[in-house]
């Protein structure tokens, strides 16, 4: 049997299908159309309803492979990997896309080894090569200084992860129809070695910064932790998230989950505010693919201005309160 079809690996938590699953479908639809093949959304979890699976079809899937089982409620890489290998062996997909999330970036390399598949991480662009039908995968590397295009000419499936929010979820078409295939878990595929003991949700005002459309980040120029209050206020006007540079995290002004950059998180929001951040290459690597970058900094030579769409050189303690004031009026 030939390898055929494009798969997207959806994600769910507590029976709810996550947004990123729909983003993957817009990527997948484009590839499936070019190949004139089927787009399949594969989703593992527990208590995911058919009604929810229908949403995947409305968003572009021709077929949903849905596997519900209590043992799949939590993402345990060994279990998910065994199930996926089994499905790959049975259905032989040509392409598998997953999100570059803590799940996708864990299960995809685990599966790629077992299936001798080529895997490309964190792709920003995906396309089909005209003559060969190979998947062309473009990704930033070396701190975003290069964009490499990669293909796997002789191995199937071709696997890739794409950054969350690097594309919009597909528009829903209520009239679309497709097939939901209910798969039964073969319990011999459960690994059973790793136990999940608990889950602790992020504290404070933590919005997942990788999920946010707007990120307002502060750096060394903030001078102390209390001053992040104005960053929070700024983020609040956009229902966005707060971020920080490594300098701010290392000074304990804000905790590590907020860190943007090479040793923190990579974000690609629609709007990124860099406030009191000089723009060290390590920080730029984590945010320079944002759609719009606004910089506020006292140093006109700061590198952050080079990647900015709009910058104000001056005292952030004057500029940010003024910005908050004007935004408050706008929101009213």
């Amino acid at each position, binding site marked *: 049997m030939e390898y055929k079809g494009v798969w997207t690996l959806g994600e769910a938590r507590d029976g709810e299908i996550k947004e990123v699953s729909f983003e993957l479908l817009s990527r997948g639809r484009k590839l499936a159309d070019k190949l004139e093949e089927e787009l399949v959304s594969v989703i593992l979890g527990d208590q995911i309803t058919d009604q929810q699976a229908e949403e995947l079809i409305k968003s572009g899937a021709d077929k949903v492979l849905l596997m519900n089982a209590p043992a799949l409620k939590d993402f345990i890489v060994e279990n998910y990997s065994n199930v996926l290998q089994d499905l790959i062996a049975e259905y032989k997909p040509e392409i598998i896309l997953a999100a570059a999330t803590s799940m996708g970036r864990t299960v995809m390399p685990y599966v790629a080894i077992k299936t001798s598949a080529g895997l490309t991480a964190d792709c920003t662009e995906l396309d089909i090569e005209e003559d060969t039908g190979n998947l062309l995968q473009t990704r930033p590397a070396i701190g975003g200084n*290069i964009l*490499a*295009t990669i293909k796997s000419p002789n191995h199937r499936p071709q696997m890739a992860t794409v950054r969350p929010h690097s594309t919009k979820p597909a528009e829903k078409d209520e009239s679309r129809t497709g097939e939901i295939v209910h798969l039964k878990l073969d319990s011999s595929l459960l690994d059973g070695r790793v136990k*999940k003991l608990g889950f602790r949700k992020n504290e404070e005002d933590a919005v997942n910064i990788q*999920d946010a459309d707007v990120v307002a980040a502060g750096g060394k120029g903030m001078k102390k932790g209390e001053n992040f209050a104005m960053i929070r206020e700024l983020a609040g006007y956009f229902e966005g998230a707060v971020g920080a540079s490594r300098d701010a995290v290392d000074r304990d002004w804000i905790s590590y989950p907020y860190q943007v950059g090479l040793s923190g998180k990579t974000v690609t929001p629609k709007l990124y505010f860099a406030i009191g951040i000089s723009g060290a290459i390590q920080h730029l*690597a984590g945010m320079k693919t944002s759609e719009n970058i606004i910089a506020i900094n006292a140093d006109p030579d700061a590198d952050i201005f080079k990647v900015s769409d*709009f910058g*104000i050189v001056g005292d952030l303690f004057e500029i940010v309160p003024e910005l908050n004031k004007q935004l408050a009026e706008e929101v009213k």
Partner: protein
Amino acid sequence: MNIVIPIKQVPETSNVKMDEETGTMKREGVESIINPLDLYAIETGIQLKEEYGGKITVITMGPPSADKALKEAIAMGCDDGILLSGREFAGSDTWATSYALSEAIREIGDFDLILAGERATDGDTGQVGPGIASWLDLTLSTYTSKVVDVNLVEEEEVNYTTVEQNSIIVERMVEDGYEKLELPLPALLTVVKEISFPRLPTLRGKQRSRKVEIPQWNLENLDLKEEFLGLQGSPTRVVNIDHPKVTRGGTIIDVREDGKVEKAVSKLIDYLKAKELV
């Protein structure tokens, strides 16, 4: 508790030259350092060794000069170093790299834990750590932010009629919080910065690292499938390299002299409105 830590030597600067022909990185002539994110794995390993005993072997795949990275790790407190080096490894992608490293770790043999950095700052894939776990069928925790506890069953207590066995309890950082997992040993953890604060090499460590012999392993003395190595063993091919433009050439307003903060901010608001962001 014996620990293996695969590390990578990466270029110090981000100005790396690419080989136009093979599409792989040119490493000559650039100052090299231990991948900064590997330092957290090394520190975690040393802390575990201090508490539970055992030894730490660091391993890397790279050119002969990569022994410098291994010596630096030894200077921090690791015990042994192994260098995978040879032409046959050139051009390896993450699939081939994790194969070679996992075979070398298999050869090292007696280990309870493998610790790896979350990803390397040059290739930036984060795939080799999970890849090694997959090759060796180890349990895996990625994005590990904390070692909560280690349960080691004493040798004389081992009772083969019970299922009790050595395990490690960790927290891993996910998008919206922290998962707590218990993994039986041997396990592989990839770690994030939050897990530890790397120490500096000590003078004694530096002296010791100078004396430590670093064996070089390759196809000659390690049982490896040649067809799994290097470019020929790699499923992926780099077909094009682009250098994206860094400068955006945006509007920059300087208010330091004129103090017209209000005006500058209202221009910013206009920009945000034009982009439909407010």
